[in-house]
């Protein structure tokens, strides 16, 4: 009997605090909405394009890492003259070599299939050749993410192709598979800096 009362009390208390936690304050709502809207203002990226970019990044990165897809955060910050795209992804676990190979092979296969099936009606996450709306280059990583993906010894032509698929209009650097060759920042340097990459 006594136990029951305490248990009830405990649950009520817990419930009370949880409720308080869950309710988002007006200022948090304002901050979040502002962040999104400013990101759009600063880049001319519409919410649709952002969502697509997010989806493509998730798809690309999940070949190499197991991560919390829902928790992926995209933010644009102004750092002096340059704008930095900050991407934060909680990494659950690094995939091992086999898994990565498999994922890459699957992606390659899917790509070939979609190409043979119908060339006109490309699926959402495959960027068709004539796509020009995305003039931004998206490159971003979290510390761990980039370290993990670069330390993997799968430097065949496969990953480069997989990445090239994402950015069909751009040449892809063979070293890190994520940056453009035309980019004047060197690849190694970029990986050292790791957490931030710029979009222009």
């Amino acid at each position: 009997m006594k136990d029951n009362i305490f248990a009830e009390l405990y649950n009520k208390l817990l419930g009370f605090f949880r409720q308080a936690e869950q309710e988002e304050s007006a200022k948090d709502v304002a901050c979040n909405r502002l962040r999104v809207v400013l990101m759009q203002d600063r880049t001319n990226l519409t919410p649709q394009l952002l969502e697509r970019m997010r989806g493509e990044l998730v798809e690309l990165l999940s070949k190499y890492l197991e991560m919390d897809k829902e928790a992926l955060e995209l933010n644009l910050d102004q750092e002096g003259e340059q704008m930095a795209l900050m991407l934060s992804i909680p990494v659950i676990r690094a995939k091992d070599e086999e898994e990565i190979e498999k994922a890459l092979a699957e992606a390659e296969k899917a790509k070939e299939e979609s190409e043979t099936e119908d060339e006109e009606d490309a699926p959402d996450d495959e960027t068709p050749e004539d796509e020009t709306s995305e003039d931004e280059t998206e490159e971003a990583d979290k510390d761990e993410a980039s370290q993990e993906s670069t330390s993997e010894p799968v430097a065949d032509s496969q990953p480069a192709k997989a990445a090239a698929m994402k950015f069909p209009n751009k040449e892809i650097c063979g070293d890190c598979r994520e940056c453009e060759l035309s980019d004047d920042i060197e690849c190694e340097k970029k990986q050292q800096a790791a957490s931030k990459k710029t979009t222009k």
Partner: protein
Amino acid sequence: MSGRVIVITSGKGGVGKTTASANIGTALAKAGNKVVMIDTDLGLRNLDLLLGLENRIVYTIVDVVEERCKLKQALVKDKKNPNLCLLAAAQTRDKSAVTEEQLKDICEKLKKDYDFILVDCPAGIEQGFQNAVAGATEAIVVTTPEMSAVRDADRIIGLLEAKEEIESYRLLLNRVRPNLIKSKDMMSVEDVVEILSADLIGIIPEDTGIITSTNKGEPIVNDEKSLAGRAYMNVARRIMGEDVDFMNFEEETSVVAKVKKFFKGLMGKEK
């Protein structure tokens, strides 16, 4: 002498650009600087009202530009402070009456005789803004902890960054309401600063005294007891290069005794 030209801008209207201009100008003059304020809001001038100088205006900036008078003739001296004067905007003309080059030229001339030239910018990002910014090397971006004001400030900051002449800009956060921040109903100072990633030059609390001071045509910095007035005084000191701590308004919302103690502490520090 080579004065500093500071433009006071915001993007959004009604956030307190003109009030800020009037108060910062008055505060700088009170601190012994020679200050001239330029109202560039052609057609919608109000700086004269806030300073209580509306009846003394004979010539405006358009008269100067169109050479109906000399620059010095158009400068209206403040009632109280001889260090302070105003170059009023024309009420009957639109933004195209003065060009960027002409404003630049006026600023250059005034630099020789004054320590500070404050340019009160019209709302918006059109020609009026471009004109006002033309002669300036520094900017104060006025915003409030409201979404629309922050968004517009972000836009303005983007435009300022693209201007080579602007060497620095800082944020003036106006109409801050500590009670609402405490209850998490309003974005905090930190939130706004983080979102805009800009340096802060001042935090001005919401103060009903602003309304009465506007009605009287006397900037609130002249009232040394008012919180907003002291906050503006601090802004002026920061502009002059002093290192002044930001006021902590939150404590003042607690018990009366604490408030008094806090006030005393502040007064002690400032003297």
